[in-house]
């Protein structure tokens, strides 16, 4: 496979730049139900301009257009957005301390629910795989778990305390109802439900467990769900692994262990990291660059190591805030967004020699 061949040359081709937001774009999400023969790819993006934009690629022209601007709902920066696994709902998290739930009603996006409760800015929101739970996190140091009820009703199931600072991101495990959060307090926490239905922290990954030494900004899982990668203000990416069979059998004692630290590749804060289906790790950083890493096939004593596949300098004119691989049929298509107010669609291709 070309990823294993260290002689292969890769290039990141720019497909299109999506402009429209009037302030920095903080995050974006590909609609998981799109990008198939029947459904053209759709992306939601959110911005400091307090709006969310929906973009769709035209089947005819293959060009991306802005289909909707979701405005006059959030009263401050919209920090993160994420589609439900079925692609039917969109959740948006805002500095206005609320999380809005949107539904596409005949082409028109309507806000069908507003989740209140956090004391201040909501930073991130995540749906679990079965769409039965939603998690949010905030500068108020808490993580909230919400139950999805019929009729677009949401009930707070638990308020999780434990982080000692601003919580930057929450992410559900891709297959199991285990929740992960990362924070300004430099730790990653793992949360699970016990037999009595109570949620509690089953692991804290801090500096003493080979963890990060500054704010952890993002978490991403590999396709198998047995590895995760985290990125930080400490300029490193860290890869972690766990015994997935143990987790499946409901063993709470299964711990995530440090596998590898990728250091020396970034010289400014890494805001985003995303692991592709194929195993390519993409990172977006405050030096305006996007980098790609893959597992190195060299046999190493202590387990797999990772090598830099490609560095795309000046991917944007300003900080890259998010990188996300497309879930669609097309392989190696990726989107990024930046403080420069734009979203860019890319294709990672092998360069012809």
């Amino acid at each position, binding site marked *: 496979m070309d990823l294993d061949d260290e002689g292969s040359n890769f290039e990141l081709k720019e497909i299109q730049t999506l402009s429209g937001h009037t302030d*920095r774009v903080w995050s974006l999400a590909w609609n998981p139900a799109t990008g198939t023969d029947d459904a053209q790819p759709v992306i939601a993006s959110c911005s400091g301009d307090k709006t969310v934009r929906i973009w769709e690629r035209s089947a005819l022209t293959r060009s991306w257009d802005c289909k909707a601007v979701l405005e006059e709902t959030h009263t401050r920066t919209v920090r993160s957005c994420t589609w439900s696994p079925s692609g039917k709902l969109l959740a948006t998290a805002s500095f206005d301390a609320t999380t809005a739930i949107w539904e596409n009603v005949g082409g028109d996006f309507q806000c069908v629910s507003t989740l209140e409760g956090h004391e201040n*800015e909501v*930073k991130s929101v995540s749906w679990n795989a079965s769409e039965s739970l939603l998690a949010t996190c905030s500068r108020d140091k808490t993580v909230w778990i919400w139950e999805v009820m019929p009729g677009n009703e949401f009930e707070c199931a638990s308020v999780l305390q434990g982080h000692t600072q*601003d919580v*930057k991101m929450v992410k559900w495990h891709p297959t199991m109802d285990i929740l992960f959060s990362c924070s*300004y307090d430099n730790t990653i926490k793992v949360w699970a439900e016990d037999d009595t239905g109570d949620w509690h922290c089953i692991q804290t990954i801090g500096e003493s467990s080979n963890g990060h030494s500054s*704010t952890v900004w993002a978490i991403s899982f590999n396709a198998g769900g047995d590895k995760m990668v985290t990125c930080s*203000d400490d300029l490193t990416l860290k890869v972690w692994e766990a015994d997935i069979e143990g987790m499946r059998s409901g063993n709470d004692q299964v711990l995530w262990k440090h596998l590898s630290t990728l250091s020396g590749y970034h010289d400014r804060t890494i805001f985003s990291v995303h692991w592709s289906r194929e195993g390519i790790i993409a990172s977006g950083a405050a030096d305006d660059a996007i980098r790609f890493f893959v597992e190195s096939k060299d046999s190493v004593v202590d387990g797999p190591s990772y090598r830099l596949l490609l560095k795309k300098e000046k991917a944007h004119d*300003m900080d890259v805030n998010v990188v996300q691989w497309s879930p669609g049929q097309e392989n190696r298509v990726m989107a990024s967004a930046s403080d*420069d107010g734009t979203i860019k669609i890319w294709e990672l291709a092998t360069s012809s020699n």
Partner: protein
Amino acid sequence: MTLGLINANPIVHAKKERVARCEDPHCDFVRDIRDPEHPYSLEQLSVLSEESITVDDKLGRILITFTPTIQHCSMATVIGLCLRVKLQECFPPHYKVDIKVSPGSHADEEAVNKQLNDKERVAAALENPNLRQLVDECLYSNEL
């Protein structure tokens, strides 16, 4: 907010001759930013000096260090915010700004530096109307 001033009796110095650093000739100097608590500029209070600012035009990076008047200054984060806003006005948007308190000048040096350089925290703070008003007063006050 505290009821009394953090530092009621700061030492005030005379303004120095300075060399223009900003691209925009109409841009006020960073050192003329008014202190949040007193009608004096940051330069007059020796919070900032010529040596405080390092600009790398090739890389598009700026490092600014400032010295709060006392070790436990709770206005340090406000001063840092003012500096960031001012620099955003003076330099093109792609310049990267790092703001730190000068080493040894503050009791919570690491914590203050971390907060001042967390882009998300800065963005959220500047959306807070009370904080924004205070920053605007420090930047645009004509009392000097």
